[in-house]
């Protein structure tokens, strides 16, 4: 059995940064205040900082790992020793990242996710290990009986690896999907999150503007050209910030299918590689917001079970598979990347599209909240009344779209595709029956006699679960889905 290996010291700054991340936000303002006053608090903070740095460095040094043909063992803990054993069969996904300064040293930061839903973090977090150890892990993972690899490595090579951690040489096949700069620009232009971060940057820029410029703007507020010019500059600056952020994150994004694994690579300064076992994918989501619909573009993401370290979107706990792709190429690309699934999705059933009676049901919550808010705003602050009215229009449009577009289709005996609308974004969730965790039908004393109800589908996404809802559908449609779900497995 190989002896326990220490993590490479190059990973210590990243480990320290991660451990201090939350403390920094709290302590930094306190530190500056103490520094200005030259109080004893300043020296106390410095001493605490040194002690914490030493303690964290020791924790880093006392973390060791062993890679055996059956499992990965991680020993950690300064005072309380902790040993964690991860058999290869439990691995859901492997996430590797490589900071620019790791590259010349041939090091990687490795995070391994299992189906453990107890903690919101990866089960194994190895901050700096040599690249060849990762190749060895991947090699042992392929050798695992549960890993249904189509190509088997020769046994002789396994013995050699076990003896001295020699790297297994693998050839890298061409990618099945990649994001070029033009697509990255389109992605930045059409993403809702980019619009949000643009607005955030605008608000920061406005507050950072020097006092004299702000006074100048106030004086010149009748000068339409000045206002348009300044707005254009701020918008361009904000968009550039959002674009730069995406460039750093999604630079040279590529997806590669390798036997039973999906390999996703991205990032400029920190190059990240995520390896996901195909069988661990819980659901696939194709989504399209209003702008993307206009340009006939889509975004595809996948949900996998496990810690949140391998997701690029913590809010939805999903990983981007195809960040931006032409609408007509989605299914053919998915067919190429995930051929075990049939991607010829049949025509949808739209259970609520035709019923005029349902308009009220879909609209009532928005009207109930936003109409009184609009009335109160009109009474107390007439100048701001446009805001709740705008929100009301968006909410009503979103609900109307939801009524018209929410749909479902069952196909291939074991696959369900649900189409829902969330804030004007259309989402299609493709999920196999075995990955649906729980199905719930909801109705009320008043809806039940009219034979309407809601259907909720719970599926695993990261260390939590996601709920997809079809609202105010006929109970017969809900029962059809429950019957599909409850039929005996073959």
């Amino acid at each position: 059995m190989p002896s326990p290996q220490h993590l490479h010291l190059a990973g210590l700054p990243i480990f320290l940064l991660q451990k201090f991340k939350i403390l920094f936000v709290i302590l930094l303002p306190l530190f500056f205040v103490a520094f200005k006053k030259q109080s004893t608090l300043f020296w106390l903070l410095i001493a605490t900082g040194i002690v914490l740095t030493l303690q964290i460095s020791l924790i880093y040094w006392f973390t060791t790992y062993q890679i055996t043909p059956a499992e990965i063992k991680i020993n950690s803990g300064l005072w309380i020793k902790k040993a964690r054993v991860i058999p290869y069969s439990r691995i859901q996904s492997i996430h590797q990242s490589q900071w620019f300064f790791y590259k010349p040293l041939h090091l990687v930061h490795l995070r391994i996710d299992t189906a453990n839903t107890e903690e919101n973090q990866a089960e194994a977090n190895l901050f700096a290990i040599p690249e060849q150890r990762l190749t060895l892990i991947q090699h042992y993972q392929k050798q695992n009986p549960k890993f249904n690899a189509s190509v088997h490595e020769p046994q002789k090579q396994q013995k050699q690896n076990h003896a001295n951690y020699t790297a297994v040489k693998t050839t890298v096949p061409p990618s099945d999907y990649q994001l070029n700069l033009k697509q990255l620009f389109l992605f930045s232009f059409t993403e809702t999150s980019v619009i949000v971060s643009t607005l955030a940057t605008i608000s920061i820029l406005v507050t950072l503007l020097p006092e004299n410029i702000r006074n100048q703007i106030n004086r010149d507020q009748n000068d339409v050209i000045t206002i348009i010019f300044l707005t254009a500059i701020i918008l361009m600056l904000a968009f550039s910030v959002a674009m730069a952020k995406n460039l750093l994150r999604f630079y040279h994004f590529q997806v590669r299918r390798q036997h039973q694994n999906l390999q996703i690579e991205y990032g400029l300064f920190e190059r990240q590689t995520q390896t996901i076992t195909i069988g661990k994918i819980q659901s696939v989501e194709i989504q399209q917001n209003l702008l993307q619909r206009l340009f006939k573009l889509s975004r595809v993401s996948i949900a996998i079970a496990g810690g949140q370290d391998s997701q690029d979107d913590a809010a939805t706990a999903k990983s981007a598979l195809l960040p931006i792709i032409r609408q007509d190429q989605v299914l053919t690309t998915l067919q190429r990347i995930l051929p075990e699934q049939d991607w010829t999705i049949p025509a949808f059933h739209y259970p609520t599209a035709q019923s005029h009676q349902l308009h009220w049901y879909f609209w009532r919550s928005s009207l109930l909240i936003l109409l009184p808010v609009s009335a109160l705003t009109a009474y107390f602050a007439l100048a701001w009344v446009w805001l709740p009215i705008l929100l009301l229009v968006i909410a009503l449009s979103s609900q109307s779209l939801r009524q018209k577009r929410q749909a479902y289709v069952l196909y291939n005996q074991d696959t369900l595709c649900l189409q829902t609308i969330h804030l004007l974004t259309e989402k299609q969730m493709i999920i196999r029956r075995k990955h649906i965790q729980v199905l719930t039908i909801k109705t009320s004393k008043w809806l039940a006699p009219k034979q309407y109800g809601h259907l909720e589908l719970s599926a695993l996404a990261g260390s939590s679960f996601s709920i997809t809802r079809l609202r105010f559908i006929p109970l017969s449609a809900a029962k059809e889905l429950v019957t599909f779900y409850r039929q005996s497995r073959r």
Partner: protein
Amino acid sequence: MMNYPLLKQQMNPRIKQAWRYSILITAAMSLVISLGAILVARFFTFNRQLFDLLLGVFLILVTVITVMNLLLIPYRYAFHRYEVTDQDLALQTGYFFRSTTYVPLNRIQHLETKQGPLLRHVQLLDLNISTAATTHTLDGLDVQTAQKLRQQLIALVKAARDDA
């Protein structure tokens, strides 16, 4: 009720007594909080009229909710059901807002029984059923039924896993 299919199994009728106690204890605690607020208010000078109005509204709400909850116990009981088949476990709750949840047996990760002081008083148990993503509770099972159901579920889960 005719348009809404009900599941077969009902809880033990003694659960109604536990619910009644629970509602009354919640109401009593709300009254204690109100009393505390009155005592605190004696030491501070602020808008007494507004305080009295808010306290009045709070007490009326507590009374209305308590009476409503007590009156609705028979309905809550009638719609609180479950059913075990060889494929899944179905749970039903709610009178005004009704919900039926289907949990396939091969999704069940672990089972847990719980008994607080109120349930101990009426000799009943809660059975918690956890999947990888969610947890569901069957409350108000008598000890024998809970143990029998737990054994039945374990056997069915094993059979369902072997079939999958």
